[in-house]
């Protein structure tokens, strides 16, 4: 980018032409976003106040049901994000340092789930985690447990299912951030006598924070909208806000209320996103 700036002052025309070309090339994507995303979003927002009052929001805010479920959704989103982060960071570090073969193998296993539908994977978890599923049967055969462990049809089952789906979304941004870190920085730190953990804490971790932020944001936002996994693995005991929105849209055709719930979810998501940004952004600056 600085190189481009310098070029601007010397020979402005080709660069401006290049910018124009780039803008032109980006236009289809911008149009798609505008037409297929921004416009419907505005329609949605207007639908939530279609009665001319805020009565739909009043219902969403005052009814214990919706407040509780929204809170539970955020809680699940945060737990999933933390678990994914703890699991993904070591994987990403390993991917950066491993051999070419290890990298290909790791990426293969990481991306493999993307070719399987979420529904199939959810049913697979039911086979594994059930009362007489693979895990419980194995543990019983080993004599470690007498009664089957409650792994499914509760919050634990839902968390396992969602973490499994979301893990690649955390690994890949962190991997990309780690890859950009100049390995000489770490070598320099170690050469100056810093133990490995300090080199990690002072150099690797702060420099990887943009990737961590991107991963956390992706995982949290997508998790909030999860629908089929909690419905199937939660056995009905775990309710997420997207399930209630779906109910209003498809079953009761109460689109104004559904729009209000969706708007609340959007605002909460943006708020948490902003908080995350400030948290990691601040830390990132301190590290530089």
């Amino acid at each position, binding site marked *: 980018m600085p190189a481009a700036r310098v070029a601007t002052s010397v020979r402005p025309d080709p660069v401006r032409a290049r910018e124009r070309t780039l803008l032109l090339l980006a236009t289809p994507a911008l149009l798609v976003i505008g037409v297929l995303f921004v416009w419907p979003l505005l329609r949605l927002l207007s639908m939530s106040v279609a009665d001319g009052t805020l009565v739909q929001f009043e219902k969403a805010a005052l009814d*214990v*049901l919706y407040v509780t479920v929204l809170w539970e959704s955020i809680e699940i989103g945060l737990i999933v994000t933390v678990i994914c982060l703890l699991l993904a960071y070591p994987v990403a570090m390993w991917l950066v340092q491993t051999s070419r073969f290890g990298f290909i193998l790791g990426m293969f296993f990481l991306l493999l789930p993307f070719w399987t539908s979420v529904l199939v994977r959810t049913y697979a978890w039911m086979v594994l985690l*059930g009362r007489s599923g693979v895990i419980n049967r194995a543990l019983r055969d080993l004599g470690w447990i007498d009664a089957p462990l409650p792994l499914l049809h509760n919050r634990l089952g839902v968390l396992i299912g969602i973490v499994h789906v979301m893990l690649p979304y955390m690994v890949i941004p962190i991997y990309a951030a780690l890859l950009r870190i100049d390995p000489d920085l770490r070598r320099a730190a170690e050469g100056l006598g810093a133990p490995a953990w300090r080199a990690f804490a002072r150099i690797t971790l702060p420099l990887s924070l943009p990737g961590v932020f991107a991963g956390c944001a992706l995982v949290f936002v997508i998790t909030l909208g999860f629908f089929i996994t909690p419905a199937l693995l939660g056995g009905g005991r775990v309710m997420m806000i997207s399930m209630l929105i779906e109910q209003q849209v498809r079953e009761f055709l109460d689109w104004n209320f559904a729009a209000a719930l969706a708007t609340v979810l959007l605002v909460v998501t943006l708020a948490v996103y902003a908080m995350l940004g400030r948290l990691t952004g601040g830390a990132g600056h301190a590290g530089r």
Partner: protein
Amino acid sequence: MTFRITRRAALGAGLAAALPLPAIAQGAVAKPDRIVVNASGGAMANLFRRTYNAEFEKRHGIRVVDTSPVDFGKLRAMVESGNVEWTVTELGGQDFVRAKQMNLLEPLDLSIIDLSRYPAAVRDSHIFPSSVYSTVMAFRTDVFPNGTHPKGWAEFWDVRRFPGPRSLRNHPVDNLEFALLADGVAMDKIYPIDMDRAFAKLDQLRQHVTVWWTTGAQPAQLLVDREVVLASGWNGRFYDIARRGAPVAVEWQGGCAKQNAFGIPRGARHTHWANQFLQVMTTPQLQAVYATELAYPGLHPDTLNFVEESVKPHLPTTPANLEKQFWLGVDWWTDNGQRAQEAWNRWMLRRG
């Protein structure tokens, strides 16, 4: 572009001819190259292709394209945007009354669709009664052999005599009715539903229901996996796994019979052919094939005559089964569905 305009004009003319002047319409209606039938998909779509779609194509020389799934929200969006893709659509669950109330359906042309031999209760100006299904109790035959299973919902609730984990649908429909039956309410006194009484009864069973199922495939799978020993579910799903050898059987006592419905979305093109398609669906021989494969019989009174004796005990409309069941109170659910669903969500959310 010109092709499009002329085609639309031709279609418009066809519609105009079909609606007010049935006498001319028969000969004059333009034939489209295809119609679109939207239904549940999966095993049902395969059977539709083999039965109704094939027969319609043979009779009228118009190709039938099938789409899925059934989606009430999409139906509303299509009708309101004036861009109706479906010629005919299935209407899920209890939605058909509301679809009519919300003016999302074209009236049926009963001069084309012959419902004269159908039961009077299911004949309607806008709603085509396609088949019957029932939410019934199913059990593992190895856990409850030789008729030792619960016979009715009072016994389903009796966890001391009939121990083991159970599964019910994560939805108020059926469950409120079953709870009232378990509490001693007579089948003809269920409606209007006393929700407080129903939820109080559900409280008693709550901790023994390990799974509240969401999709129709779940209860069958839960029984096969031994995840539960008793479950509610749609009769065709249990029929399917029992036929493939699973140790699962059905108790019809207290089952909740329901009508499956089809309709023509308002503003659909080719409504004449939509009505012709529904007329094909009244053919008892085809309904019998459908019933034999899925255990969801149509409502033409002759259908049972074309079904093998061995299949009859598995159909909800066999007289011996029908008298053990009650019909879902669609009107009550149309008026109270949203309120009941919110009460249900609240009840589910309570801990314990």
